[in-house]
């Protein structure tokens, strides 16, 4: 990144600001105005997609804390999302816990489960750890499928799906979070802002710096006095806390949840988000979440346009679409890793630098 000249901090307070320049603050205000007005401009379906992106962004930030900042590869993301989602749902269904409390409790429960599966990380590294977290994925998925109290009934029939009671924002029956996309939009946006601020500031504390030290070279970190065991488990716990929060939000955003939404494919999609977005960066996680969530929707709408113009038949559309979505996902991951391994965040800053330095971009 090009070095900005002209910002001279004279107090520690100004040095510590996240947005030190006026231009950045103006941009932030514009962005907030844009976010507040968005639901009035776009359709309900588009708001629904944005909601999914924001949930995914929270989960991806969580995963990035673990993988991108602490360097512990996890293939168990889907399982931890499932733990959060089911913890939240079960608390609401069986114990009539208010949804807000259930959401927070779900995050803490997932943090605990995550820390438990993080215990092997002290001795396991790299690929061995990756497969150990795959074990977490398989075990949690198995429990969700097999354990009877987790199953619910829908319309009197017993299913693997759990029906979620209504959640009302501020007790207002008009603001039902399960399907009122606008209400959920503002709610999840506030949560996302809190998570982003928390995550950004985490890496300005000694905890965050310890995580980064472990990622860069764990033995060196230990020599410098970082307690490896404590910080690795803590990284798993903090990461899982956010992932559980995302899982709980998924529950509150749905009318029913089932295990299909927390499989190994979900783990892979989340890994793709942080890699495509940019490992070890909060903004990267958000870019990646947006990219991976929106991509299939774009392909779907392209397909639907083709069907409407009678270029392809409905039959072909239905059979081909999932494979095209999957193939595009794969091709983009491969291209991204080959062309720009540092992800969308890096591409974006390259573009910004190009225009800032134009026409003397060297």
């Amino acid at each position, binding site marked *: 990144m090009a070095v900005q000249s002209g910002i001279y901090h004279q107090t520690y307070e100004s040095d510590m600001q996240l947005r030190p320049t006026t231009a950045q603050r103006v941009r932030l205000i514009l962005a907030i105005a844009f976010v507040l007005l968005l639901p009035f401009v776009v359709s309900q379906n588009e708001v629904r997609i944005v909601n999914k992106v924001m949930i995914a962004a929270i989960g991806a930030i969580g995963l990035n804390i673990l993988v991108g900042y602490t360097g512990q590869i996890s293939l168990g993301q889907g399982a931890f999302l499932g733990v959060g989602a089911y913890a939240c749902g079960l608390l609401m269904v069986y114990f009539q816990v208010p949804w807000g409390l259930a959401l927070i409790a779900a995050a803490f429960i997932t943090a605990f489960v995550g820390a438990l599966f993080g215990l092997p990380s002290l001795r396991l590294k790299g690929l061995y750890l*990756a497969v*150990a977290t795959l074990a977490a994925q398989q075990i949690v998925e198995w429990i969700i499928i097999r354990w009877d109290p987790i199953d619910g009934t829908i319309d009197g029939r017993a299913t693997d799906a759990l029906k979620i009671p209504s959640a009302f924002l501020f007790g207002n029956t008009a603001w039902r979070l399960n399907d009122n996309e606008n209400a959920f939009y503002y709610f999840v946006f506030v949560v996302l802002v809190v998570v982003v601020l928390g995550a950004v500031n985490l890496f300005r504390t000694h905890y965050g710096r310890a995580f980064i030290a472990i990622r860069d*070279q764990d033995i060196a970190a230990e020599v410098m006095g970082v307690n490896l065991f404590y910080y690795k488990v803590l990284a798993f716990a903090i990461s899982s806390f956010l992932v559980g929060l995302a899982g709980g939000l998924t529950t509150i955003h749905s009318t029913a949840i089932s295990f299909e939404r927390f499989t190994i494919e979900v783990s892979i999609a989340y890994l793709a988000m942080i890699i495509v977005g940019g490992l070890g960066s909060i903004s990267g996680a958000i870019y990646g979440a947006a990219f991976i969530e929106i991509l299939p929707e774009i392909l779907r709408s392209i397909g639907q346009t083709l069907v409407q113009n009678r270029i392809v038949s409905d039959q072909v559309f239905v059979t081909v679409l999932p494979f095209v979505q999957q193939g595009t996902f*794969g091709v983009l991951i491969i291209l991204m*890793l080959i062309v720009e*391994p540092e992800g969308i965040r890096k591409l974006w800053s390259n573009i910004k630098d190009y225009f800032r330095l134009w026409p003397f971009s060297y």
Partner: protein
Amino acid sequence: MNPDEILKFLRLTYTALSDGALLALIALALVLIYKATDVINFANGEFMLVGGYIGYQLLVWLQVIESPSVAVLLAVIGMVVATTLVGVLVERLVLRPLIGEPIISVIMVTIGLSNVMQAIVGLIWGKNPRPLPIDIIPRFSPFRIELEGARRPLNLLPDTLIILVIAFILVGGLLLFFSRSKHGIAMRATADDQQAAMSMGISIRFIFALTWSLAAIAAAVAGLIIAHVTNGVSGDIPGVGLRAFPVIILGGLDSIAGAIIGGFAIAFIETFASGYIDPGLKTVSPYLVLLIVLMIKPYGLFGQKRIERV
């Protein structure tokens, strides 16, 4: 002992043996790539898928040949040639640009690759399972084992035995290749120390291409065997590939003996846990055992301990 129990034990052992041979073959493909190139191939299941479908397509084209055994032989040869090309292409186009990147990038690129391969197979052949037009292994009538007092006799399919033999021949062939042939020794040298191997005049590029094509062939044979066992090719084949991950971690990522022993160990754990305790334990029991083993031996049973320097 109850005769029914004895027959059940025999049946489970028989299943576990053939399953283990298959898993060992799949795990071998993974270990092969890991040893030579330090890549763990999450697209291994998809190599099996692609190999199986190529074999299926060749069988469909070749079924006009009078003698089924000639058709099967030609199809297998064709499949080996085609998968060799796939292996070389994948290595050249996808993995070579990522040499020197962190593990996570390499894992992710093979995951991306697996998605692409599944999509291609899906676009060409659709998602409905398709039966093989010719049996690649002749279907003999089952052996019958009867015991005094048993309610039902035990029927064992001889195909299983043939699969075991095929797997043994392939695994044995690969072992011989590593210990005796020039290229096999070059592969081991590359795995040991790439720079030293290069300075001895070994072409690393050729070795990498060779490794990927050998692994692709092993995976394709495994895919075709699964197609035979499950009565046809389908999109479920990669799921079997996923079962090989606990195998290689249990055995140790870089140990060929570990892959073989791990394959049989996991197959026995799966079969006996699901046969005696609960059928649902089949998918999860290997991972439970794996976690316990990893707590005690973090590099698997036979894996080489890595000594790190700061």
